[in-house]
């Protein structure tokens, strides 16, 4: 599957591979873009990866349609340190978002049940996958 025309300008396109496309979405309205993508028919989320690159936290949503992987990166500034939830659009992100918030210390706004998933309730210190 090729990248559909309608999705050409959903964000800043930065990388293309065989059967995959990578975009950087604007932090402010990424949820609207994702809503459009779901309405377009790419409604299976496979994974959410997070990476702390020093300045900001990269959150990557990996969407799947057949053999096509759509990777949408959102850069969360460390000063804000929060991101909107997708659980209302995609219930499958329930655990993935919990894990993201737990491991990288991002607050998920509007998550139905925030809290720890793998770590203990009385975990102290910085989130395990935060650098520096």
């Amino acid at each position: 599957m090729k990248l559909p025309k309608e999705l050409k300008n959903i964000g800043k396109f930065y990388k293309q591979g065989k059967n995959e496309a990578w975009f950087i979405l604007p932090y402010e309205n990424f949820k609207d873009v994702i809503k459009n993508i779901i309405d377009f028919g790419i409604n299976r989320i496979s994974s959410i990866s997070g990476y702390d690159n020093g300045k900001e936290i990269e959150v990557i949503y990996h969407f799947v349609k057949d053999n096509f992987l759509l990777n949408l990166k959102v850069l969360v500034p460390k000063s804000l340190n929060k991101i909107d939830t997708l659980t209302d659009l995609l219930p499958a992100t329930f655990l993935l978002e919990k894990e993201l918030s737990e491991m990288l210390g991002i607050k998920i706004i509007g998550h139905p049940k925030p809290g720890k998933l793998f770590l203990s309730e009385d975990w102290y210190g910085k989130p395990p996958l935060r650098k520096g």
Partner: protein
Amino acid sequence: MHDLMIPFGPAHPALPEPVYLKLFLEGEEIQDVDFSVGYNHKGIEKSLEEMDYIKSIFMAGRVCGICSSAHSTCYTQTVEKLLNIEIPNRARLIRTSIFELERLHSHLLWLGMFGHEMGFDTLFMLSFREREYVLDSLELITGKRVVHDINTIGGVRRDVSQETMSKVLKNLDILKDKVEHLQNLVEKDPIIKKRTVGIGKLDKKDVERLCLVGPVARASGIPYDIRKTDRYLAYDDLGFKIVVENDGDNFARTLVRIKEMLESIRLVKLAIKSIKPGIIKNKVVMNFPVDEAISRVEAPRGELIYYVKSNGSNKPARVKIRTPTYANILCLNKILVGHTLADVPVSLESLDPCLCCTDRLTVVRNGKEEIIKLEDLHGHH
């Protein structure tokens, strides 16, 4: 509110691995389910960041014992994508045959456990007996029974001799008869049918909404198989058929796995027969660009995803693993509520949960659990 709360796990005869279910009963009927995971943390994602690319393949192979080669294949595949290299054809076929042998061993183990959960130890014993043939074959090719360590960046580590191949083919011929025999028994046994048909139903809509993967999705009539869509390794050349059932209950999931076993036997045979002489490993220049890559395989339990980010050094900057059970465990509420306590182990096992895979994150200091209310997931329920 509820009559009785039954703690199911973390240590329970029905569970080979720790997960904690809270079952709220009224009489024998399940009213509500809570679950918590995290008893099995090994800190693998963090430790992968602290090892170089070669060493971390062995670590990835140890995420889970049953799908060891699935993890290491997926990880090497991702790193190869990062380096933009191809692997030789012989290596591709060897990887495919190991991968499918592993699926066989996983599914046979699952069938045994499934019988055991129904109180049917004979099926357990028979299925574990047949599993020996697979383990022996794996031992012949890789030198170990469960953790194979066959993959390396650019190919495989070990060659297969002609003699080994003929021995493995002979084992597979025996195994094919045995699996067909088991299929014949399980498909028609009245009590197994009574215990599984109509229990734990998942329809197409649930599967799509919760993004379920693997045999669970395929049993509900969704032909979602990475082997077909991504055509990685040698599956495209071998002509792979997807097994799909439409009922979405425990029995359909059983049938999908048994039919997949027969398909796997066919694939391994074909793969081994089409191995041509050649090199098994390409020379690799370990020069990592600052880049990221994602790749997927169809592990025995479903779609397995590795995301690797490199920052140019000889160690990965970030590895994210999304395991199949992690996706599938969301449907617990759907398949358990409304059925009786006796169906809990059977339905739970029908997902083939691999909690070693699910709980693989960071170090845990204190084993206090976190409970996810699954009600929140199924808002309309």
